């Protein structure tokens, strides 16, 4: 599936849905009218996109930091020969939410999700002890907020 397989209506719908729907009794009414669909069609199309995996989620996007949660991006240089083992060890920690292999000397990049800074510190110590890795914590210092994303 690539984006060219999407109909023009799907594309427009995705652009609207990425920007967000309002908090009103019938939040799909305006978007349905703009696309020449019924509200029911909009809702069922969202359901199909979720089921088909085009959307990973649809709903309120919670700001975890403002709700007492903490995310930290962490980088590490993992030796190629032990990459798979170390990846398994790191992923086994429930506080590790995402983990990516990237093409760089720092080849492992993961994100921890905890409730407090102290928990993040403890988690990073535990991962470091378990794996022997030197970890580079890169918590966000500032977020440059973005409105509408990825025009389709």
């Amino acid at each position: 599936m690539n984006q060219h397989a999407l109909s023009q209506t799907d594309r427009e719908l995705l652009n609207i849905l990425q920007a967000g729907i309002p908090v009103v009794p019938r939040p799909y009414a305006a978007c349905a009218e703009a696309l020449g669909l019924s509200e029911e069609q909009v809702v069922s199309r969202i359901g199909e996109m979720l089921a088909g995996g085009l959307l990973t989620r649809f709903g309120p996007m919670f700001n975890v930091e403002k709700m007492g949660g903490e995310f930290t991006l962490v980088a590490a240089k993992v030796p190629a020969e032990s990459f798979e083992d170390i990846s398994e060890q790191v992923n086994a920690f429930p506080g590790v939410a995402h983990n990516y292999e990237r093409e760089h000397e720092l080849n492992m990049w993961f994100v921890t999700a905890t409730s407090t800074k102290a928990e993040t510190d403890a988690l990073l110590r535990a991962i470091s002890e378990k794996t022997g890795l030197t970890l580079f914590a890169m918590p966000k210092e500032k977020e440059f907020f973005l409105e509408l994303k990825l025009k389709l």
Partner: protein
Amino acid sequence: MSPETKIAADELERRIIEATEAGLPLVVEPYAEVARQVGTSPEIVMTTMQRMLERGAIRRIAAVPDHYRLGFRANGMTVWDVDDGDVDRLGALVGQLDFVTHCYRRPRHLPGWSYNLFAMVHAETREEVMKKSAEIRKLLGRSLRGGDVLFSKRILKKTGFRSRGGTR
């Protein structure tokens, strides 16, 4: 309102989060459905969610696309070493580019890691990511001391974030 039907604001928010964590109910009147689930009126649910939007606890009520499935096969984390005095002003500009999905200022780890501005770029191909990276480079202009693009090779783990963190 009688004491037994009045739900405290914190408790109400907690219940709304629980009811919508997996997503908004897929019905034409989703807030009314959330209200049924949390045991209050649609008006109270909407007022509460509007308040959460205003103070930033909810960023927006929106779709999160799977970039890869939508044809954005290449994902490059562009990283930049930008003068400390200019990084916030320029970060705001980079964040407005429509191909940048996340943009953050992060601490350097000298001497090995001098990059303090991160901008995630999704595109259909690597070449396209590099073109977009060049656009960012141009925007950063004289304040830029260096940059790099880290392409993702493999997703090693991906779980849904829980609203309160730590549990998954």
